[in-house]
C-alpha cells in the first residue's frame, strides 16, 4: 500500500513539473512560431512606420537598452552599499534581519506603484515630464532587492577564514572590503544584476506614464521631456490594435525580440552562477 502511495506521489510531482515546463514551452513556442517570421535585419534596424503596422523597432530596442543600462547604473552602487551594511557593518542579528525584511517588502511593492511614485516625484514635482532617467531610476529601484539579495548571499557565503586572515594582518574594515570582499563577491553582483535586468526589460507599469511613449522619440538628448520608445510598451499599445494582421505580426515579432533579450540576460546569468558556486565550493 505504501509503495503504491509513494509511486502515486512520484507521478503527481512529475506531472506538476511537466505542467510548469509545458506552459513555458507552449508560450515560447507560440511566440516564436508567430513572431519569428516578422524578425529580420530590417525589423531590428528600421524605425517604426505607419503607426506600428510597418517598419521596425530599432528605437524601441535602443530605448529599452537605455532604460536597463540606467537601471544597472542606479542599482549596482546602491546594492553594494546596502549589502555591505547588511553583511559587514550591522552588528546585531536583529538589525540584519530587519534590513533584509525591508528588501523583501520593497520587492513586493507592485510595479505600478513604482510608476505612480515616479509620476508624482519626478514627472510632476521635479517637473521632468516623461524622461528616460525617471524610467531608469524606477527600474533600478525596483530590481534593487534582487541585486542586493544576490550580493548579500555571495558575501555571506565568503569563507570566514578570508576575512579573518585579512583582518588578522591588520587591514582596516575598509581595506578588507576593497581587497577581499568586493573582488570575491562581484560575481553575485553580476548575476543578481543580470536577473534583475531581465525582469526590468519586460516591465511596463513603472515606465508607462513616466518614461516611454509609443512613437516619435529617438535617442534622448537631455533629461527633461526626453522620453524613449521601449519594447514592452510597444507590445502593450500594438496588442490593443492587433485586429490588423500587419500589426499582429509586428506584435509577435517585438515579443520575440523582448523574449530574446530577457532570455539572453538570464542565460548569461545561469552559467556564471554555476561557475561561481563551483569556485565557492572548491576555493
Amino acid at each position, binding site marked *: 500500500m505504501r509503495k503504491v502511495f509513494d509511486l502515486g506521489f512520484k507521478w503527481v510531482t512529475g506531472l506538476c513539473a511537466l505542467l510548469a515546463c509545458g506552459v513555458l514551452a507552449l508560450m515560447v513556442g507560440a511566440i516564436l512560431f508567430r513572431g519569428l517570421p516578422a524578425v529580420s535585419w530590417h525589423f531590428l534596424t528600421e524605425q517604426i512606420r505607419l503607426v506600428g503596422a510597418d517598419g521596425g523597432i530599432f528605437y524601441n530596442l535602443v530605448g529599452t537598452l537605455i532604460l536597463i543600462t540606467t537601471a544597472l547604473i542606479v542599482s549596482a552602487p546602491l546594492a553594494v552599499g546596502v549589502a555591505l551594511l547588511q553583511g559587514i557593518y550591522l552588528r546585531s*542579528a536583529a538589525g540584519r534581519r530587519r534590513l533584509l525584511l525591508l528588501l523583501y517588502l520593497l520587492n513586493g511593492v507592485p510595479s505600478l506603484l513604482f510608476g505612480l511614485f515616479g509620476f508624482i516625484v519626478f514627472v510632476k514635482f521635479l517637473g521632468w515630464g516623461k524622461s528616460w532617467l525617471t524610467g531608469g531610476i524606477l527600474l533600478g529601484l525596483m530590481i534593487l532587492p534582487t541585486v542586493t539579495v544576490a550580493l548579500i548571499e555571495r558575501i555571506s557565503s565568503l569563507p570566514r577564514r578570508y576575512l579573518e586572515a585579512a583582518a588578522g594582518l591588520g587591514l582596516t574594515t575598509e581595506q578588507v572590503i576593497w581587497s577581499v570582499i568586493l573582488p570575491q563577491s562581484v560575481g553575485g553582483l553580476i548575476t543578481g544584476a543580470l536577473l534583475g535586468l531581465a525582469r526590468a526589460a519586460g516591465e511596463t507599469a513603472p515606465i508607462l506614464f513616466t518614461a516611454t511613449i509609443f512613437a516619435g522619440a529617438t535617442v534622448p538628448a537631455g533629461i527633461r521631456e526626453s522620453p524613449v520608445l521601449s519594447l514592452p510598451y510597444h507590445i502593450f499599445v500594438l496588442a490593443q490594435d492587433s485586429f490588423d494582421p500587419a500589426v499582429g505580426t509586428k506584435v509577435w515579432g517585438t515579443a520575440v525580440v523582448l523574449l530574446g533579450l530577457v532570455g539572453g540576460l538570464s542565460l548569461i546569468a545561469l552559467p556564471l552562477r554555476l561557475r561561481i558556486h563551483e569556485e565557492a565550493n572548491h576555493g
Partner: protein
Amino acid sequence: MAESRSAPVLEVRDLSVLAATQPILRGINLTVPAGVILALLGPSGAGKSTLLRCLNRLIDLTPGLRVQGEVRFHGQSIFAAGADPDALRARIGILFQQPAVFPASIRQNVLFGVRHAGRVPRGDWPELIERALGEASLWEEVKDRLDAPALRLSVGQQQRLCLARTLAMNPEVLLLDEPTSALDPRSAEAVEHSLLRLKGRRTLVLVTHNLAQARRLADQTACLVVREGAGEIGLPDPDLDRPAPTVGEI
C-alpha cells in the same frame, strides 16, 4: 626556564568571554614573557582558539560575543576605548589551522598585508619577500615561480605561505592556532623548524593538541580545561603525559 626574562609582552587578567549569558571562557589569567614560545594545551571546546583570538581582538569579528576583563599588550589595555584593533593586529600576527591564501600570485600573497600597511617602501619589497619566505622555510621551493597562482601550492606550502605573509608584517607576537594539524608530516616539520628559528626574536603563542609538539617547541605551557561548561586555566589532564613546566603565574 619558567622565569620571565623580561617584562611580559602580553598579560591576560581575569578574562571572560560570553555568548549571550553563556560563558565560553571564565576568569583567565595568563602572562606571556617576551621571546618565548608559550604552548596553550587543552581539549577540544575548551576555548583555546577563542582565547587566542582575544589576544589580537580578532574576536571582535564574531558577532554576539562579550569580552570581560583585560588583555594588556606592553602594559596597555587592548580593549580600552580608543585602542586601535587594526594597528594591534598588524603587530600581533596570527596563523590559522587552515591556510587561507588569496586567489592571487605567491608574491601578491606575501605582500598582502604589507601593501595595505604602507610602511615598507616599494623598493624593499623583493628583499622582504625573500626574507619572509625564507623565514617560513618556503623560499627554496617557490623562488623561481613567485608569480604563479598561490592556490596551486600544496596545503602544506600554502600554510607556510600564510606564515610568510604574517612574518612579512614583522609582527612582535605570533599567534598560532594549531598551525600544523592540517598538514602532511614534511610540511609540519618545516613549519616547526621555522617556529624554532623565530624563538627569542618574537613571542609565540601556540595552540596545539599535540603534546609532543608542545614539548619540542615550547618554553612554557598553559592548559585550558573545561569546568562547568566554560574554559578555565587549570592543571592538565593527569591521563596525559606530563607536559613542559607550567608558567608560575597560573
